[in-house]
């Protein structure tokens, strides 16, 4: 009975959420109270952002596990979150932390060796196979592959700034909060990351 009520409440919140910002705060508040159905809505709303961020930072290796880990940490940490307005930044911070841990694991383990190129090939195949958009052409798939390899060539710090600022369209101040660095550092890293990526793309025959 209570579960049904929670579902109805969550659906109502979801219906309202497209129009108002306050409802997101309500949703987060209910999640903080331990409401799983509301957490499902929160997951549905944010999972794509988290997923693509993790993918662009770490590649597709164990991507589902990483997404799951992020949301487990969110669920566990939600009662400690003071204000709902910081939720998005906090979520990206968790994603960044999980991605950093994954990179360290890869650096230590055998996964990040000569297998890397094979992994990329496999990723590209998966993307081709599972992508449901029929209109996507081969040229765009090629560019996506080039961009992904270009990102992989960057250092992890530069890559994170570029992904969060240029691909996720987050302001520099928020990127600084997520990465816990000064705004000046974000600007500097962004400058170097763009230059490096541009050079790589030019080597692949793409000029601006």
């Amino acid at each position, binding site marked *: 009975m209570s579960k049904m009520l929670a579902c109805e409440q969550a659906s109502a919140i979801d219906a309202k959420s497209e129009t108002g910002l306050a409802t997101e705060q309500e949703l987060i508040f209910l999640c903080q109270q331990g409401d799983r159905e509301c957490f499902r809505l929160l*997951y549905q709303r944010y*999972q794509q952002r988290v997923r693509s961020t993790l993918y662009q930072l770490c590649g597709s290796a164990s*991507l589902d596990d990483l997404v799951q880990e992020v949301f*487990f940490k969110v669920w*566990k940490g939600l009662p400690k979150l003071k204000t709902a307005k910081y939720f998005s930044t906090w979520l990206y911070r968790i994603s960044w932390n999980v991605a950093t841990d994954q990179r360290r694991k890869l650096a230590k383990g055998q996964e990040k060796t000569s297998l890397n190129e094979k992994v990329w090939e496999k990723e590209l195949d998966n993307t081709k196979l599972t992508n449901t958009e029929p209109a996507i052409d081969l040229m765009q798939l090629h560019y996506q*592959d080039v961009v992904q390899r270009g990102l992989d060539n960057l250092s992890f710090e530069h890559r994170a700034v570029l992904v969060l600022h240029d*691909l996720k*369209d987050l302001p520099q101040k928020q990127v600084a909060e997520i990465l816990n660095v000064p705004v000046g550092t974000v600007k500097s890293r962004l400058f170097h990351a763009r230059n490096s990526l541009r050079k790589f793309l030019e080597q692949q025959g793409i000029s601006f």
Partner: protein
Amino acid sequence: MTNLHKDQQNNLVSFLRHNQPVPCNPRADLEQHLIDSLEPHPQHRKLRFKVIWTIPVTITFRVPVKLIATGFLVTSVSFGLKTPRTALEPKDLENFLVSNWYGTVDSDNYAASEKTEAYWLLPTASKSQPALSVLAH
């Protein structure tokens, strides 16, 4: 180190956004698996809160209620079971009143009350006072 011009930067950023790598779709059961695997939030704080507040609530409400109930019982029993007291005899009552009457309006007390009355009542025109007259000499 080459510096990107503004236009080049904009072109690069728009190219990256348009061709950003898209992840493959998640496993079909990922969402449900995640929701099923969630552990309930720890309720230690609530329990502690309950323990802290249960004792004072008990002390504050239960003990006084018991005391009042006990007092009511004792009083009602004592009033109900004891034999009713006999009323005073009229003769005794008269003697009591007479013996207590004397001395209640003794001279000193009365004087004091008089003084008091004189102090807080408006003066009366009981004594005739000579009329004021203005004589022109």
